């Protein structure tokens, strides 16, 4: 047998090999790309948004100019923005925003807990994933406003009625994110994990959960969008006591035929939605960049 051929003791670690490897490593990694200054980066992120806002305002103004509706029914940006600013400086307005955001946070937090628990349980087995996966996706596509009649019957006109629908809107997306993440854990990583002896709890802790994190965050992002929509629907439909929320302000303004106020509140709702969505987008991108899933 030829097994000892060439296994003579030779001087170990050829310095030339070491050097060549280091050289190749350096070449393959390439030079670091220059990073733009902070001002430049802010500007490059900002100008598309500024342009989009400008174009929207212009389009709005164009519709007003066209004379499609009387200006007391559809006022232009020139009449609305001062009203918007007026609202922004009022304490009662901020109280309403605070109540709405508190409901959003409570509802979303509850959705995360329920979505994660349900997703975690369902993702345990392939059979459960098949059985409940399509049901959860079905819940996800169901318009949350359709839940309100039942919700009002169950909880009367109360915080509970709103919360119930917010959770039903958001939790399926969050659960689905987790299930999809577990389902699509790359097979090659699972194989590597198996070789390493990862099993049971360790398999989940060291491999499946971290691997499903980006999909889970995407689920959270979508869940937030559904929670915010359901909450607005809820605040318009479920009005009780003398609570003042964004939804209540919105429907009051409609009753008074105060279009500038209606549009102002809508702008606030839009902005809150965008800001929170951006936060999730930021978390998502940071995660992907860290993992090298996309070049930042």
């Amino acid at each position: 047998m030829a097994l000892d051929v060439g296994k003579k003791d030779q001087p170990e670690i050829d310095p030339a090999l070491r050097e060549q490897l280091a050289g190749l490593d350096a070449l393959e990694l390439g030079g670091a790309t220059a990073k733009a200054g902070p001002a430049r980066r802010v500007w490059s992120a900002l100008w598309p948004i500024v342009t989009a806002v400008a174009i929207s305002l212009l389009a709005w103004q164009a519709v007003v100019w066209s004379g499609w509706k009387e200006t007391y029914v559809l006022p232009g940006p020139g009449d609305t923005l001062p009203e918007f600013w007026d609202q922004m400086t009022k304490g009662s307005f901020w109280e309403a925003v605070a109540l709405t955001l508190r409901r959003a946070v409570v509802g979303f937090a509850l959705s995360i807990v329920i979505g994660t628990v349900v997703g975690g349980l369902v993702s345990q087995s392939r059979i459960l994933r098949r059985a409940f996966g399509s049901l959860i996706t079905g819940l996800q596509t169901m318009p949350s406003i359709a839940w309100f009649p039942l919700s009002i019957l169950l909880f009367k006109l109360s915080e509970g009625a709103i919360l119930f629908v917010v959770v039903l809107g958001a939790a399926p997306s969050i659960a689905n994110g987790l299930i999809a993440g577990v389902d699509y854990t790359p097979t090659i990583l699972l194989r590597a994990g198996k070789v390493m002896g990862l099993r049971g709890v360790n398999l989940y802790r060291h491999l499946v959960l971290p691997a499903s994190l980006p999909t889970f965050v995407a689920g959270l992002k979508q869940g937030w969008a559904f929670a915010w929509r359901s909450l607005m629907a809820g605040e318009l439909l479920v009005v009780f006591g003398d609570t003042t929320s964004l939804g209540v302000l919105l429907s009051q303004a409609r009753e008074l035929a105060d279009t500038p106020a209606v549009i102002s509140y809508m702008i606030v709702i839009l902005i809150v939605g965008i800001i929170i969505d951006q936060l999730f987008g930021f978390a998502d991108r940071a995660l992907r960049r860290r993992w090298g899933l996309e070049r930042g």
Partner: protein
Amino acid sequence: MTQADTAAPSRTAAAVRLSGVSKAFGSGAGALLALDQVSLDVAPGEFVCLLGASGCGKSTLLNLVADLDKPSAGSVDIGNARVALMFQEPALFPWLNVTSNIELALKMRGVPRDERRARAAELLESVHLGGFAKKRPHQLSGGMRQRVALARALALTVDDSGGQRGTVLLMDEPFGALDAMTRDLLHDEIERIWRERELTVLFVTHNVREAVRLGDRVVLLSSRPGRVIEEFPVTMDRPRRIDAPDVSALAATITDRLREEVGRHGA
């Protein structure tokens, strides 16, 4: 046997012993026979290259040795050797940096926490990546990732004194996705590590020159089903160059034999 001093009775003489191993996937008429009556002994410290065209069951064979799968017939005996497996993809965990990837392997191997860092540093140093411990896998080149994967594979098999005696390293086309330049350097690397750590290597490839460059022995497998059709001892002195005339000559002989086997499927 040349290693008479370590060779106790013939049962322990081989680091890996496959006896009449068959593996079928599925059952009944649709069953696919991946391996058919494969018998192969790999001596301790031997570097064996398994060569074959597509469908020769190379990867199946490694899975059987790694105990990731069970043979349909025959037996696989690796004694009390520890087995490490490396794939064509580095399969590093992207959420962990380089050193944490290796430390996780050490953890699963049962190395106490306070020793892991030093062990991981030592392993990284041995693949010449000491300076990259804090990088994430995606920040490294393909060749560097594959070296990290090698370090991780070795981490799974260190014994309590940090040695590697009795380790069977299974490599499934580990350099298949790399460019020729990188592959060439990694051939030198794997040869050095094999010698230093006294590993037993079972190396699967479809690159004939690579097999001749690295192996003490090249085992040629047929395709569908996989059978051992011929073995070629490689007796050239190490280190060999992949472009050396005697390496090329043997590679040509093996390639002819391989083509003959592949042609059989086209007839």
